[in-house]
């Protein structure tokens, strides 16, 4: 759309800026302030410059947790994106079933995150949970509380359960926007179902997939509540992701300076990745126009 140049539009944006800035800029400044000081108590604090940053960048525990986080986020994307597309392709075309499937698919998205953790905490247990019990009956020695691999897989399956619907609903809305003429042309050309998918549906899904990948990457990179409820980060540190390491540091050990420096580095990583996605997306928009 052709937009006219008008700086008075700032007046319309101002409320948003005020509301968001109150919750974003003041806390951010506080974090910056903390990150350059060593704080013993509110009245005893020393300026330490960039010492916390240097320490953070050398901290083994954080490297481990960062690597775990990246591995986890990529595993989430690698499973949820293809599965989401498959589910979207399997949606019924019309009628009452569409609404039903949509509501059922959206169900996991509406459950508070700690309840999601609780649900999986229950169903994964070998004594009172159906899935844990079934695995035990199959002769698989499964225990998410003591076996690191089991814990990691359980957190991953939980995330797939929780969020694949988002990708599926996104892709479904993308698929619905494809005009019928494309399919008619494909029928005339006797295109195989795979060719229809590869050359018609997938290219048309590009923009929604980009949104889906971006949202899933961000949210899985910030995951906190679900693994915290399910495994508490354990056994050991197998499922301790970045947010949890950070919260432990800030609240548990009250290591304010270090936690603040860590927060800023965390934020910068997210910012960098968001910028890449945003650039890709606006680029995409201008391609379409």
């Amino acid at each position, binding site marked *: *759309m052709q*937009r*006219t*140049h*008008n700086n008075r*539009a*700032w007046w*319309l*944006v101002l*409320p*948003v*800026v005020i*509301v*968001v800035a109150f*919750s*974003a800029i*003041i*806390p*951010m400044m*506080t*974090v910056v302030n903390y990150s350059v000081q060593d704080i013993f108590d509110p009245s005893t604090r020393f300026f330490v410059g960039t010492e916390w940053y240097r320490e953070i960048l050398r901290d083994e525990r954080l490297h481990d947790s960062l690597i775990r986080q990246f591995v986890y986020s990529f595993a989430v994307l690698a499973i949820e994106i293809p599965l989401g597309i498959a*589910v979207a*392709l399997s949606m019924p075309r019309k009628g009452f079933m569409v*609404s039903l499937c949509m509501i*059922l698919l*959206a*169900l996991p*998205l*509406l459950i*508070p*995150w*700690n*309840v999601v953790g*609780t*649900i999986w905490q*229950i*169903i994964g247990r070998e004594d009172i*949970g159906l899935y844990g*019990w079934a695995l035990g009956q199959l002769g698989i020695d499964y225990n998410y509380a003591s076996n690191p691999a089991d814990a990691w897989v359980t957190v991953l399956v939980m995330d797939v*359960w929780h969020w694949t*619907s*988002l990708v599926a*609903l996104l892709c479904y*809305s*993308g698929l*619905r926007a494809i005009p019928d003429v494309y399919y008619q042309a494909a029928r005339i050309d006797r295109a195989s179902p795979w060719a229809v998918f590869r050359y018609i549906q997938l290219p048309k899904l590009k923009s929604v997939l980009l*949104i889906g990948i971006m949202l899933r990457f*961000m949210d899985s*990179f910030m995951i906190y*509540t679900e693994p915290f409820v399910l495994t508490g980060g354990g056994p050991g540190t197998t499922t301790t992701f970045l*947010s949890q390491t950070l*919260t432990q540091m800030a609240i548990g050990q009250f290591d*304010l300076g270090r*936690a603040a420096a860590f*927060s800023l580095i*965390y*934020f910068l990583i*997210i*910012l960098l990745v968001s910028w890449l996605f*945003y650039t890709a997306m606006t680029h995409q928009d201008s391609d379409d126009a």
Partner: protein
Amino acid sequence: MTTRKRLVMTIYLLFLLVPIYWLLIMSFKSNQEILGGLTLWPENFTFDNYRVIFTDPSWYMGYLNSMSYVVLNMLISLAVALPAAYAFSRYRFLGDKHLFFWLLTNRMAPPAVFLLPFFQLYSSVGLFDTPLAVALAHCLFNVPLAVWILEGFMSGVPKEIDETAYIDGYSFPRFFLTLFIPMIRPGIGVTAFFCFMFSWVELLLARTLTSTEAKPIAAVMTRTVSASGIDWGVLAAAGALTLIPGILVIYFVRNHVAKGFALGRV
């Protein structure tokens, strides 16, 4: 082809619904039965777990507290996001692209980063332990999302409509409230749904910013863990009750929710 489709859908929905089913039936079991062995249907159907929740103020107030900050957040988000989304969809202005990106970065800020400063900020302005504090804190990620979705929906409305209205002598507020808003009603519904959803499911900030007066249900649920172990039945009942508002809300926007998930861009 269709049978394969139906098979994929059925298997996926089974995978999706079995854990929820398990939670539901567990909420109707007694703790002895839950721990005693695996039953697919409650042997002694009991409402005791629900009775605990509905008779104890510290439980049901948790639901009311959660609802109050969620609704408050929804109203604030929509009120500030509507004019801003209009500005982004209709005008170019100094720094618009940077502003839009800045808003998005807040959607992507890990809540853990803001825990401590939020606590101090809201304590210092005297909002700590009120629903308003949580509602404002949730604006951090809901307002950018609301602007994003609404902008997508508004860009779908041809600009000629605005121009015709102005020629017909409509003032901006009158045009916006009586003509424009009714036109993007589905978009507003979907945005409200998303604000509701993300505010309802969030726990970390809600728990940090409240202590007793405005404690959300998600934080109350941690009470079921006591010295004698976890009270599984009550925990399941409390979890099951958190599903209801979501189901009610999505029913109203089911026809537009797909477009909303694509952030109004399809």
